[in-house]
């Protein structure tokens, strides 16, 4: 029965291919909107994860700090219970790290005469001491030590990024949701039209004993397939945009470019987009079938 319904569905999709393509496009657009924001959120998230974490306290050393002071600091730190690991990062190493995280900024960084980044000690906080309060008190304490310029338990721009990432995610979901609703309704009306044009056939099928499920199945499959196609289209478009951005040489804001192109979406998110397309299509189908309940 599934095979028969599938054949029916594909046949009907092909018969009205123009209209169905339009419907698939509307789903594609909403998923593209969502996808773009998810892409942004994903890349921001990677940066955040790599650079900052709730388990790091960064201690910035003064320019004039001596080696002695530095060593003493490290020793003190290593003895403490809250400290799991303490690593010294030279200004050069810091610059390298920066250049690695933001490749598009490499040029900018290369043009600098002096390295503006300070030497720092990165403390990895031991488990059990990772709550905000403990981190705060640790960093406050660090600030008072000799040779230390400043200490922070989270790079300010990292928490900024984290906020932007979740904002992007929320914006994506809301915008995607609104456009998605329009897409679902479009699919519903496309399917409804498909049902109307086959009204006489449906009546005959009913008269010879077809159940509602038997008659409805091809339409439901039709709408779900539309949804998957829409999802596929959006992924293709998303990937094309992604490649385009990655290829363009620092045209727009280089920072933004890095932010969007560190990596493409993880496979799970791609599958999610496809499933959302499928779901939207199925919902559209169910919606239209409900109204034609006969």
């Amino acid at each position, binding site marked *: *029965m599934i095979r*028969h319904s599938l054949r029916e569905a594909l046949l009907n999709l092909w018969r009205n291919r123009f209209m169905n393509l339009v419907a698939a496009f509307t789903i594609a657009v909403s998923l593209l909107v969502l996808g773009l924001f998810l892409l942004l959120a994903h890349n921001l998230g990677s940066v955040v994860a790599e650079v900052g974490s709730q388990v790091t306290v960064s201690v910035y050393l003064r320019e004039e700090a001596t080696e002695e002071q530095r060593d003493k600091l490290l020793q003190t730190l290593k003895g403490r219970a809250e400290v799991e690991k303490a690593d010294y990062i030279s200004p050069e190493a810091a610059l390298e790290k920066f250049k690695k995280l933001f490749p598009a900024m490499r040029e900018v960084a290369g043009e600098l005469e002096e390295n503006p980044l300070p030497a720092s000690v990165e403390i990895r906080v031991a488990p059990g001491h990772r709550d905000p309060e403990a981190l705060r008190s640790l960093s406050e304490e660090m600030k008072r030590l000799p040779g230390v310029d400043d200490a922070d338990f989270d790079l300010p721009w990292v928490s900024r990024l984290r906020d932007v990432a979740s904002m992007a995610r929320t914006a994506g979901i809301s915008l995607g949701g609104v456009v998605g609703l329009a897409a679902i309704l479009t699919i519903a009306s496309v399917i409804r039209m498909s049902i109307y044009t086959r009204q006489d*056939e449906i009546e*005959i*099928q*009913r*008269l*010879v*004993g*077809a*159940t*509602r499920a*038997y008659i409805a199945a091809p339409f439901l499959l039709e709408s779900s397939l539309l949804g998957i196609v829409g999802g596929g289209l959006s992924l293709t478009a998303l990937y094309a945009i992604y490649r385009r951005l990655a290829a363009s040489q620092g045209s727009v804001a280089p920072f933004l470019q890095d932010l969007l192109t560190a990596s493409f979406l993880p496979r799970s998110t791609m599958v999610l987009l496809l499933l959302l397309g499928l779901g939207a299509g199925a919902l559209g189908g169910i919606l239209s079938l409900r109204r034609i309940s006969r």
Partner: protein
Amino acid sequence: MVELYHVNKDYGRAHHALMDISLEVEKGDFVFLTGASGAGKTTLLRLLFRQELATSGKIVVDGMNVSTLSIASVPRLRRRLGVVFQDFKLLPRRTVFENVSMVMEITGVSRREQRAKTYTVLEMLGLNHKVRSYPLELSGGEQQRVAIARALVNEPALLLADEPTGNLDPNLSWEIMTLFKTINIRGTTVLVATHDKDLITRMGRKVVTLEHGRLLAH
């Protein structure tokens, strides 16, 4: 097999299509339902498979109370029947083969069995050379035979035929009746609505007459 108790069918207040019909058709019977056009033959048949609902009265078909059937159970009733519609009701976008096999597709019969049975019944009706044609490519008589084929292919417990020989010449009509006789012998209850007096006389079966919506005493 079919029982009607004081069945009425009205369309609006003025139009009484059927009035106080009480009728019994036993299992294995072969009954002709006759009457002038507009007497109510088609309406009566329609009530039996619930294409329409009776206004009042009780209808039992193959043990099922038609009026009180839930919407979900109606397909179950219809699958026990073979119906030949007066206007054929063929699917225009399907071939002759698909039109006939469809009723088996619906009940989940295997493809192999579908093919076998469809070819058999189409051969019985002289349509094997038209298997891949579409209804619109066929003459009225051929379309009628396809409709009959579809009604017979599932070997129904009850065959309801509304003017099944209307578009057929006398020889073909007689052949169809013979076919009906055969399946009746095999156990199918047959109820044929027709105003072909000749046929009725030649067949010599039980006759029920409708006049202006009422049953005449026979």
